């Protein structure tokens, strides 16, 4: 195996594009090194992107936040503006692993690892986040929900890397939230998860919403019917019941040791309702 730590994104893309064997990007390494240890992957080349300028930075602008792909999750909650604007995203990211893992793991890595149960991904989808992808042919942007192609697979092409995650600016009177079900209090993988991001008007009526689900399909789901169920409402009981039903209806889960199809389908609705309540309160709704 070769280890490279290029100083620019362009060099990183060139190294990855030219490699004839198996090549992996190294950011936090909390998935990659575990897979290497288990013999699941045997890289010929590992490209460490942490030396690239801006890769570990969080930048705030009028259009939102740009989070460098190698920014460790521990840095997210240390950024007061980010925490204030997108508490659901930060909370989701901080549910991953221990303090030790938080010191290294990244949201971009969580997305590229492409586990259906990735905690930060539904929250990013609900927030309307996009990724900046750099490659041999230049840059492109994609919505986060368009990145996973299946379990463990993404739409990134050879030589492409995620350079940053872009979160939009927080809209006035908006709020986001993320909840997951796990049988323990922490240090576990989501059995079902749900993120809700919504905006309200002066009367408390929901004007826009995005609802996403994790661990109930091969990839994260953006559930438009669930959003429709609450738009135009004040999140009354009837709206919440419709939201829960739409979330459950979107589930296409598997049975495994962590949860059954029936359980995941039911709990997706429960989490959607509860996450919507938190997001609504954060938006200033009563």
């Amino acid at each position: 195996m070769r280890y490279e730590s290029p100083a620019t994104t362009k060099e990183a893309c060139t190294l990855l594009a030219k490699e004839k064997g198996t090549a992996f990007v190294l950011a936090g390494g909390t998935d990659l090194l575990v897979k290497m240890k288990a013999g699941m992957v045997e890289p010929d080349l590992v490209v460490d992107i942490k030396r690239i300028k801006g890769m570990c930075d969080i930048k705030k602008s009028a259009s939102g936040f740009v989070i460098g792909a190698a920014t460790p999750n521990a840095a997210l909650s240390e950024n007061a503006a980010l925490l204030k604007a997108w508490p659901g995203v930060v909370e989701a990211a901080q549910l991953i692993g221990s303090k030790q893992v938080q010191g290294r793991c990244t949201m971009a890595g969580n997305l590229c690892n492409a586990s259906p149960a990735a905690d930060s991904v539904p929250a990013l989808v609900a927030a309307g986040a996009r990724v900046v992808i750099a490659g041999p042919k230049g840059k492109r942007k994609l919505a986060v929900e368009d990145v996973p192609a299946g379990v463990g697979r993404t739409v990134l092409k050879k030589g492409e890397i995620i350079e940053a995650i872009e979160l939009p600016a927080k809209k006035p009177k908006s709020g986001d939230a993320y909840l997951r079900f796990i049988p323990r209090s922490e240090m576990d993988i989501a059995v079902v998860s749900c993120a809700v991001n919504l905006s309200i008007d002066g009367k408390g009526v929901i004007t826009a919403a995005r609802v996403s689900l994790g661990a109930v399909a091969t990839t994260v789901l953006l559930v438009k019917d669930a959003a429709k169920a609450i738009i135009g409402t004040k999140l009354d009981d009837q709206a919440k019941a419709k939201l829960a039903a739409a979330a459950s209806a979107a589930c296409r889960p598997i049975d495994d040791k962590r949860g059954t199809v029936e359980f995941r389908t039911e709990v997706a609705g429960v989490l959607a309702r509860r996450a919507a309540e938190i997001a609504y309160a954060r938006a200033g709704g009563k």
Partner: protein
Amino acid sequence: MAVLVKTTINGDSVEYACQPDESLLDVLRNRLGLTGAKEGCGTGDCGACSVIVDGRLTCSCLVLGAEMEGRTLETIEGMADGDKLHLLQQQFIDHAALQCGICTPGFLIAAKALLEKNPDPTEEEIRFGLAGNLCRCTGYDKIVRAVQAAAKEMRGA
């Protein structure tokens, strides 16, 4: 091909050569003789290999030795000041917060990182902060009490 690395460990400049796929934990233990960090699981679940890299608590089993060029590393070997134990170390002894001792260096490093960020943690914050460290002997209670006592002492100092 070996990678040459210059780094700072516990305040000392250190140079080493390692294989590109060699973990930082293996570098510390097998090349540098710093055997305080232990390999429990090797997959980032147990925290026995905890170190602090550029101020962030990390499992050294999930870091490549090759990544350490120019970084600042703190290990358990740098915790005591010569013969004078760190307050956390002393409180672990006073509270009998260890039995077999394998997890202890990791707990001490994690507790140090926790108290540097939060000098006055609640019991719940201590338990959450140390959730990445597994101990199969103590039942955790003595560890939590030792950290509480050290935190109190450190705030008073």
